[in-house]
């Protein structure tokens, strides 16, 4: 990805973040507290899938080095 495109993505991200920065009051956080609103609603399954992707794709975990074995097959 070129630097220009990366800057574009970051700018769009900043725009989304800022326009949506309505302050969330504590009593307005019921929806956010629901399990389906978690960033990862099925973490164990996601980890297992990520392990499969890592052993089958070139872009590996990058920031995580927490075992996973050789994945040589």
């Amino acid at each position, binding site marked *: *990805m070129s630097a220009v495109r*990366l800057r574009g*993505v970051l700018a769009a*991200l900043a725009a*989304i*973040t800022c326009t*949506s*920065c*309505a*302050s*969330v*009051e*504590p*009593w*307005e*956080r*019921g*929806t*956010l*507290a*629901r*399990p*389906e*609103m*978690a*960033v990862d*609603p*099925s973490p*164990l*399954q996601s*980890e*297992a*899938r990520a*392990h*499969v*992707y890592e052993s*089958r*794709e*070139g*872009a*590996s*975990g*990058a*920031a*995580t*080095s*927490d*075992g*996973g*074995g*050789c994945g*040589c*097959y």
Partner: protein
Amino acid sequence: MVVTDAQHRFLRAVAQCVARLLRRVRAARARERRARAAVTRTRRAPACLDALTGAALLLPGLAGAAEGDGVDVQLLHYREGERAILGLESRYDPIEADTLTTRARFTLADRLRLRLDYTQDTWSGATPVATAPAELRGNFSNDLDGISNASPYLQPGRTTYLDIATLRPLATDGYGNLTGGFDDRLVHTLSGASPETRRQADLLLTYEWDESALDVGGGTSRERDYESVFGSLGGRFDFDQKRTTLRVGGSFTRSETQARLDHDALPYLYDAVEVVRDERRDVGLHASLSRELNRGARLEANVGFGHASGYLANPYKAVQVLFIDPDAQAFAPPGTYYTVSNALRERRPRSREQGSLDLRYVQHVAATDAALHLGYRYFRDDWGIGAHTFEAEWVQPLGRSWRIAPRVRFYSQSAADFYAPYLVTRQAPFPPVVDPLRGQVYVNANSPEDGLRYFDDPTLANPDGYNPNTGDPVVDENGDPVPQSIADLLTPLTTRLDPNKLPAKYSSDHRLSGYGAISAGVTLTRELGDGVALELGYEHYTHAGALKLGGGGEKGFADFRFDLLSARLNVAFGASGRVFATPSAAEDEAHAQHEGHAAERHAHAGAPAGVMFDHLLSTQGEVMVGYRYTFARRAGGMRQGSRALSAASAKAEGCAGAPCLILPEAMDMHMHMLELMWAPTDWLTLMVMPQLTDMSMRLRGVATDAELIALPHELNGLYQHHISHEHETGGFGDTSVAALVRLFDGERHHLHAGLGVSAPTGEENVQLRDTHAIDAGATHYGMQLGSGTWDFEPSLTYTGRAERFTWGAQWNATVRLRDHNAAGYGLGDATQLSAWGAYDVTHWLTGSLRVVYGWQGSIRGAYRGTFYAFGPHDEPRNHGGQLWDLGIGLSAALPGTAFKAHRVRLEWLQPIAEDLNGTQLDRKGELALSWSLSF
């Protein structure tokens, strides 16, 4: 007491909600009075409760309630589709993997939490080793049936022609005659793999402060050829009343490779080494920022950096090289290069820098009350791989207890700089050593390392021996003639290829090629009861060069698909509910005095861990989930009947008349079983018990030199394979389904019958990988995962109780409903009698003693397909027998705590005596561990 701003806001939220609820209740009552209709609750009340839940997140110690204490058990099945090898049928099955993951989370102290993970996966099947132009004809069938046979196809010395201008392979008729045009087809060289198991255990300790947390973790992963140890440190910081969360962390991994290369590949690899020993280190750093954007949206951004150094290659991957030998171009038709093939082990850089950016956005969709998850990931490394991943998931709650989440994922990567499906180099694979004055150097083929050099000398005055290759007289280094007996043995001295004429790094692993992948899947979650959830997942994945963003991906030969199936059971300890809530002291007392129910609970508390089908559930609608682990070991010497046998006697008598070449040394079996029980009525309990099994076996060679010489060459290789590797198998075993029927239930005595069926879900014909170019056939009988037959499993169980004593007895049997399975053999029928007594040492701990008698018939029939018997364990008659064991067990429960519905049992079965059928390996014992939870 100082009230913080956060607490003030929380109290205000509580007050507002309570007031709102009271207003609604009053209004509802008024409406009820007016309409005289039943109004149970207003529709918006849950939203208010949600608000309270959300506000409660601000309080210290409650923030992690959504990820509370509990246990997860997850099974994952991975299955690849067939690889395309030019329309031929590979006789290897595609790769399959079964993965078991268990995760337990506990609160150790007020702010200290522990997470324990255990994962094991077992895989087997065919995988690409290298890639070659189809014109090499390495992967063409030798058989009329079109099944690709010998393995692997890295044979050196295969020839092909390349176009001089483009270096593209030219089409031939297979006999070296050009047929016109190019043949750009590529094909994988596949190699089978015997099953292999990896085990990983790790833990994570978390200490929580009010607005931050510290994570310290570590673990180890072990497999036959790769071991790693890792540690991590992380922190979480909450800002702005937890609307914004920052996480930072780092991890370090040290791994060691000890890979024994494929016997078959060794002769075909130019730079073969028998065992690759090396190590690598990985360091990872990451930071993420999570932000609540508004009451229905959340955004998370994550940056990661990774540095890996050391051996980063895959020891089992090779690269085909086409050598353009300048001295052999006389064979080339005009306009072409004549090439000869060879294969090199892949060479990857010894360091890798990786960076990634992850963005995740979650949006609540009010119209259907669902959550839309969008994700994007950008990855870049200094190997030249750049990757984009796009993900979208729609998480839709359905009613109170169901959740369905369809998702799609798209992935695209560019190729690593050093990726090439194969290499072309302008040099001879074995360049001749030429003396500038005396020409080609020769050595004695029988002793090339003796340091003596020979030369042709056409001008020699008094020749003796003549070089059979050139017809010229031969001289030694001093210029003296040599006798014909030595001249006949001369061979040209060659050297190794010049690495400078090859790329510095190369790999033809298609995972480093340019391609795209699209996958779609669905996750279905069902809340089963108080804090218990079942989650099922499916995904279909398609890898294709044509899917690469921007085009230019690898050709279709590398395309493949896979399916992923997963099932997860989650039990939350801390969830609210009748079972998990800590009972009050009064409840405890009532419970203790409640003779009937308590007696029923305790009646099965005494049954030791190794007893299956030991109790019914006591009340209609009750559900129990359990996990049962069994470890059995056979090791030590050999036995025949009831007596110990020397190795020499075992060798002479163990193999049906012929001397044994191999004796078993040790065999381990691990079984993980999930027990799901449900009582549709109070006299009937239904059970389902899926299981994951893995086994390993170590053998030792006892063949004499004379026996080895008499052995055909291929079987000699298989013999070496057996004694140099520990064999492993693993995967899903057979699944038992049973109904337990209450026959008698008195104050003291209890009797129930079990009628079960074992379904043949385990593989009964696991194959060894091919070795020395022969089909090695089926693995040992004792290493198969299932019986291959439907089996009837009746049982009768009696239990009794008086004061602190419990006792019981059980008869159970396994009757094979067919004599033989599809592989040609049938396991023997079996029966077992157990009697035990147990004593409640304290109100939470019970000790037990058990006596077990077991009988099992020998194996009927034999493998119909290829099978090579080398030792006693390969003889069908050397299985089964009569066994006497003593079991010592402990059972623990924690009544009056949040864990009162949990029970943990442990039992060690010590062999006392046996009368084994034929000659078998001695038994060391069996460990049974079970955990159960009823609700």
